[in-house]
């Protein structure tokens, strides 16, 4: 299938979100759509799928002219959109979600998924409830459902962690396009897509500013500059960091021996051994695991959404194992879930969401500007923000509330490089002020860049990594993850 967008324009109120955007996706191609948070990538994908209607421009599908798309038409011709936070029915299993979308015989939903899973080697437990899945599992599940429904073009919105941590998924994409299908991947992370894509479009402030067709890997720095306009000068760490410099070595060593939080003999799932983890004051500790291997359960246990099978959680020496989430929050713990929309509701206004954390008028403006959130006004709804801007908004709350412990699950997902740099700077600032971090992550390289200590979570429970060995050979962590 060939798709061509011609001079697409889209306004949101007075904001010109897309400005004469033209793009081409050929059959058998993987096309990258790069840009910083708020560049217009998600809007463009939404127009291509039919969630939004363009204010001007034309869409050509296999040469046929269309003024706009709509989701049911897109699905009928094989265009599927795997969103950053896929919209699935949470209370249902993967199979049941497919049954909802299948128009014909629903008895075979499970066997259709099994067949697709085997054909493309995409393993996922589709009989598990969606609410129990991580975002990565949901993205993978939605991809599988799309395949089961006959997807010929996949639109993947920010699948960065999937692309960097799940070789199975990247192998699938290569196999998928070899069959004549097409993929459009939007991302703010060049490294996540550069090995995979045939061509990249670079977007900036609602415009396509570059169409790069060859030597993508070699032109890495050039693409960075195009994405962000100029080299940043707010501390200058991100160019260095992404090339492998270890931030935690630059940061001040944690001097305090006070344990802020300690997990003692915790069992979060029957098939995972005991977890023993502690975090000291002013320390950044990461727990890395393969997606779906206990990371969500660990976060939910820490946040108080589920009870551990056994063991106890001590916060400042006090047992909080049975405390409900809000009591943990009131004691100074800030939880950032994998699905950012579980923390920031799109249904409410920015003022209301920020007000929940005790922030008002000028404070809100100050906090949002510190993390460069792009927004219309405090009265606009969170739903108007892009996924990246929602992540930045969370960082702005962190900046202003200064909690004593941050527990986060895949905190960097959805952040572009500038956002990532901001997050790192913020962590350094908060760390020096005494804030501790317990970060549950799937990307071990990212964990190595920012952590003082790292634990690996696998069936064997928690295993602490020797940091000196990991700095020399990061694959130590990976090997432990898959052991």
């Amino acid at each position, binding site marked *: 299938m060939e798709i061509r967008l011609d001079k697409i324009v889209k306004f949101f109120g007075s904001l010109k979100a897309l400005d004469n955007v033209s793009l081409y996706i050929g059959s058998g191609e993987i096309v990258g759509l790069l840009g910083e948070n708020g560049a217009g990538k998600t809007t463009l994908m939404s127009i291509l799928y039919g969630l939004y209607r363009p204010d001007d421009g034309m869409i050509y599908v296999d040469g046929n002219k269309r003024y706009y798309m709509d989701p049911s038409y897109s699905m009928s011709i094989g265009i599927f959109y795997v969103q950053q936070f896929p919209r699935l029915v949470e209370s249902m299993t993967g199979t049941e979600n497919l049954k909802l979308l299948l128009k014909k015989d629903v008895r075979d939903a499970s066997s259709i998924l099994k067949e697709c899973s085997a054909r493309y080697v995409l393993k996922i437990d589709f009989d598990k409830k969606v609410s129990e899945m991580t975002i990565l599992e949901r993205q993978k599940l939605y991809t599988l459902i799309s395949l089961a429904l006959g997807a010929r073009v996949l639109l993947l919105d920010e699948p960065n962690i999937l692309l960097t941590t799940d070789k199975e998924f990247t192998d699938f994409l290569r196999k998928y396009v070899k069959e004549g299908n097409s993929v459009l991947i939007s991302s703010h992370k060049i490294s996540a897509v550069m090995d995979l894509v045939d061509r990249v479009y670079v977007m900036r402030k609602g415009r396509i500013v570059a169409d790069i067709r060859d030597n993508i890997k070699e032109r890495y720095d050039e693409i960075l500059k195009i994405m962000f306009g100029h080299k940043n000068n707010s501390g200058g760490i991100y160019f260095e960091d992404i090339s492998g410099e270890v931030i935690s070595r630059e940061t001040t060593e944690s001097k305090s021996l006070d344990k802020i939080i300690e997990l003692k003999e915790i069992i979060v799932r029957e098939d995972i051994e005991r977890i023993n983890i502690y975090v000291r004051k002013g320390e950044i500790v990461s727990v890395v695991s393969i997606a779906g291997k206990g990371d969500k359960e660990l976060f939910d246990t820490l*946040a108080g959404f589920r009870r551990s099978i056994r063991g106890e959680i001590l916060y400042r020496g006090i047992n909080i194992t049975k405390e409900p*989430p*809000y009591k943990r*929050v009131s004691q100074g713990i800030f939880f950032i879930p994998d699905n950012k929309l*579980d923390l920031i*509701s799109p249904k409410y206004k920015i003022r209301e969401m920020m007000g929940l954390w005790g922030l008002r008028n000028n404070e809100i403006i100050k906090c949002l500007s510190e993390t460069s959130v792009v927004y219309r006004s405090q009265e606009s709804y969170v739903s108007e923000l892009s996924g990246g801007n929602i992540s930045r908004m969370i960082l702005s709350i962190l900046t202003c509330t200064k909690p004593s412990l941050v527990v986060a699950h895949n905190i960097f997902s959805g952040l572009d490089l500038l956002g990532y740099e901001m997050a790192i700077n913020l962590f350094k600032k908060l760390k020096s002020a005494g804030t501790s971090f317990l970060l549950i992550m799937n990307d071990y390289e990212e964990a190595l860049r920012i952590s003082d200590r790292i634990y690996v979570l696998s069936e064997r429970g928690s295993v602490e990594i020797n940091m000196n060995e990991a700095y020399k050979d990061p694959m130590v962590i990976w090997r432990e993850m898959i052991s």
Partner: protein
Amino acid sequence: MILAYVKRRSEEPSLIRLVLTSVIMYVLVVFTGIIVLMLSTGFEIRDLTRVLLDYTNLASPEVIRYTVIIALLSLALLINVAGGYINLGGEGIVALSMLGFLIASIYDLGILGGFIVSILLVIAWASIPYLAKIYLDSSDVLLSFLQNFIALFIINHIVAHVFRGELARPRSPPIDPSINLHYVSQSNILYGFLGRVSIESIIGVVIATITLSYLLTRTRAGFSLRLLSYSTKTASISGVNIPRYILLNLLISSVVLSLASAELLLGGTRVIYYNENAKIGIGSMSFGLGYVSLSIAILSVRNPYIVLLYSYILALGYIIVSLSASLVIRVAIVGLALLSVLLTELLLRYEVRLGWYSKH
């Protein structure tokens, strides 16, 4: 090429647009309905048209009384809706609340005692579906709907057997005169306008509207309460003390609802009686009051001030109901009034846009 499509408005409607749209829709829908009734039936139309065109009804004491009662009930249910609790058992709860005043009358507890018993009964009864929803993930809609019938059966049983009055028909004894609200005396100039609406109810509806509007849209507590309707997970991870806000929700709604039921009972029949025609329900209250108030609550959740306008429109419908028209026509008129409110809301929240594409 020209295209028409519907778009959700992001901004709140202005007061002028709100009032104008409501009035226009009411006139259009209700009057169109009357014409349809005129064409399809051959009776009572003259009376109905006369009442509809009689402008003195617009500010009759009975309309004002019903406006206040519907507004109070809607505001009570609105705070439930804001907190994510759809209470389909409005009528049953009003009946239970009335029972509180009856108990106070029988045991000489006075008006304050009546309010306290009434509030406690409402909190206890209304908390069942709310807590079951939060902690057991059950359906608040279904449970409160079921509870509605249970409450009405309980009240029917109580007035027929436990607290039965001396008359042959199953009804409670009349409420003691010491249990009463304060009304404008007949010599006062306001009497013709306010009629039988108590001072407490008028003050209550004004305070409740302003307070709820401010609480829900401008305060951290109000927003915390509203967050429960989005997701208890989001609320708890944001530090919202869920039990405290459930209690706050039930407490505020119970106080407002008790005032509504006090006005309904003490300013009306002053007895609770079994509805022999319907075999269920309380004769002391108009049919469908709970559902109508819930509809207003859902429509006004983003702007509690709208409750006053919608309550007035529905009260006008109820006045028409009070005519000696057939049951079918009475129900149809209330339905039309409700439809006009719904269409107003749709027009205020959505706009039809015309778009066009330039040729390339």
